[in-house]
């Protein structure tokens, strides 16, 4: 039986709003999910879906209206378990008047490290996130991307068992994103449990063992990135080239589109042999035949579209 690093049961969060706070806005509704120890779990969803709300509830930054959460076998309200958790807030912000080295030293003190160990860990972390030359500059002079790196450094400084990262790639340039992705992979290889929210779907596909998709405050699916979008092919893509002076057969002219020196054509699985026969007659050179599978992005976009359509329907009906 797997042991869970994170378990939530019917976790819900409502915010009062409107005049006299009489109305309620639901940010998260009945979230029940588990993250196994040692796995990398990605929380996906559009803006305002409830990803950050979930993470803030887990970290005790906000409190649930209903339900409960357990982290590393303890209630989320028990801060002593924060010893084993590293947390990177969304768009992290630290004390302007401190340098990166000072802010890391400040955070390291809470974990009870001695002077020498603190200094060594701070040095290592600054190096790991590529800030070794900027460690003595006050954070007020840091860019958003540099602050993100400091945030990551403070999250993993104490070698936690569980790392929770809220939009870790946010604000980073491609190089920074690559470096952060490498750090996450390193943590994963070291057996850490990782929960992170992201908008960047290729990162989720690369890094996650499982993903959970949240939309409209509800968890709409969990599973391996492949399984959640479905493994069934939606069609076949044929790449081909025509001999010099060759013409496209009439039957496939409407389906084929120019792609570099050749053509690309999408057909249903049942139409594959017929299309291949026609291409053979036209003396076409087949470059590649591949199954078309939906990507996480397709799934995500479908979900967002559905979500927005629902929201619009509610708005129109005035409910």
């Amino acid at each position, binding site marked *: 039986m797997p042991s869970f690093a994170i378990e939530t049961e019917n976790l819900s969060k409502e915010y009062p709003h409107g005049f006299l706070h009489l109305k309620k806005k639901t940010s998260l509704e009945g979230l029940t999910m588990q993250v196994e120890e040692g796995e990398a779990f990605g929380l996906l969803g559009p803006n305002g879906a409830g990803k950050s709300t979930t993470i803030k509830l887990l970290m005790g930054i*906000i409190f649930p209206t209903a339900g409960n959460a357990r982290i590393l076998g303890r209630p989320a309200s028990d*801060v002593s378990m*924060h010893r084993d*958790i590293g*947390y990177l807030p969304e768009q992290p912000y630290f004390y302007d*008047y401190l340098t990166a080295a000072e802010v890391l030293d400040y955070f390291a003190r*809470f*974990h009870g490290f001695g002077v020498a160990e603190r200094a060594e860990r701070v040095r290592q972390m600054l190096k790991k996130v590529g800030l070794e030359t900027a460690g003595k500059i006050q954070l007020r002079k840091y860019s958003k991307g540099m602050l993100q790196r400091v945030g990551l450094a403070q999250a993993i400084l104490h070698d936690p068992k569980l790392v929770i990262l809220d939009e870790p790639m946010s604000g980073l340039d491609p190089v920074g994103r690559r470096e952060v992705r490498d750090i996450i992979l390193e943590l994963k290889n070291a057996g850490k449990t990782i929960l992170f929210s992201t908008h960047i779907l290729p990162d989720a596909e690369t890094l996650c063992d499982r993903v959970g998709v949240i939309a409209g405050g509800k968890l709409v699916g969990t599973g391996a990135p492949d399984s959640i979008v479905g493994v069934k092919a939606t069609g076949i893509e044929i790449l081909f080239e025509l001999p010099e002076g060759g013409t496209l057969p009439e039957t496939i002219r409407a389906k084929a589109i120019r792609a570099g020196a050749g053509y690309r054509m999408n057909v249903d699985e049942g139409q594959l042999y017929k299309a291949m026969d026609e291409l053979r007659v036209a003396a076409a050179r087949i470059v590649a035949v591949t199954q078309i599978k939906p990507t996480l992005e397709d799934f995500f976009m479908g979900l967002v579209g559905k979500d927005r359509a629902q929201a619009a329907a509610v708005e129109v009906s005035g409910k």
Partner: protein
Amino acid sequence: MNRVLIVARNTFREAVRDRVLYNLVFFALLMIASAVVVGQISMDIETVVMISLGLSAISLIGLLIAVFTGVGLVSKEIDKRTLHAVLAKPLRRWEFLIGKFAGLAATLAVNTAAMAAGLFLALWLVKHSVVRGDAVVLVAVYFILLKLMLVVALAMLFSCFTSPLLAILFTGGLYVAGLFVAELRSLQVTTLSQQTQKFFAVISYILPNFSNYDVMGAAAHGRPIAGALVLHNTLYTALYCAMVLAGAAMIFSRKDLK
């Protein structure tokens, strides 16, 4: 306890780097200017004027720092979301709150001590001597510091559940009301019913009694201050701060941060 000290140390560092202690320069200039002017225009009352002026400046500057910095201690951390990373450490919210209080209290203590030193220097410039009787000025400075602690605690309490602007107004309002506690207790107005008078009497015991800390007159004229009052004010401040901070911690511990 250690975690409280970590937060306190950082709060002190924040105050120093945010140039809170720069007010000392202003105070020093004020004292030097006063010493020169008072030395020229006063006849035998230089000491009284200098002490009154010095203590008033210490109190006013301290109050401004206590109210504005006190309100910002928590609200700034919530607004800027610096708290998110801090509370992800093994640190309870009440420990954070007490640490913040202790940090600002330490800043005010250093600030007040430096201003007191400046006041004594100005006195020496005017009188060319500092006598044992001047020690009563130190007691007055100590009372100002106690008063500032209480103001910080109140500012922190209000900032835990309302906006910074309202917290400043509430703290300022309560301070002014607290200056008239003695009058409220001895209110003998025939037009008020007995019940209303009783109500005001009860209120006067709930309000922080800031009038107790005012010994400026005694200090300026070199009159001794009773040891019992020193003990009373010390215990009163400790108890009142403890109650206010406990209330603040209860509210802050259940507060949703943005």
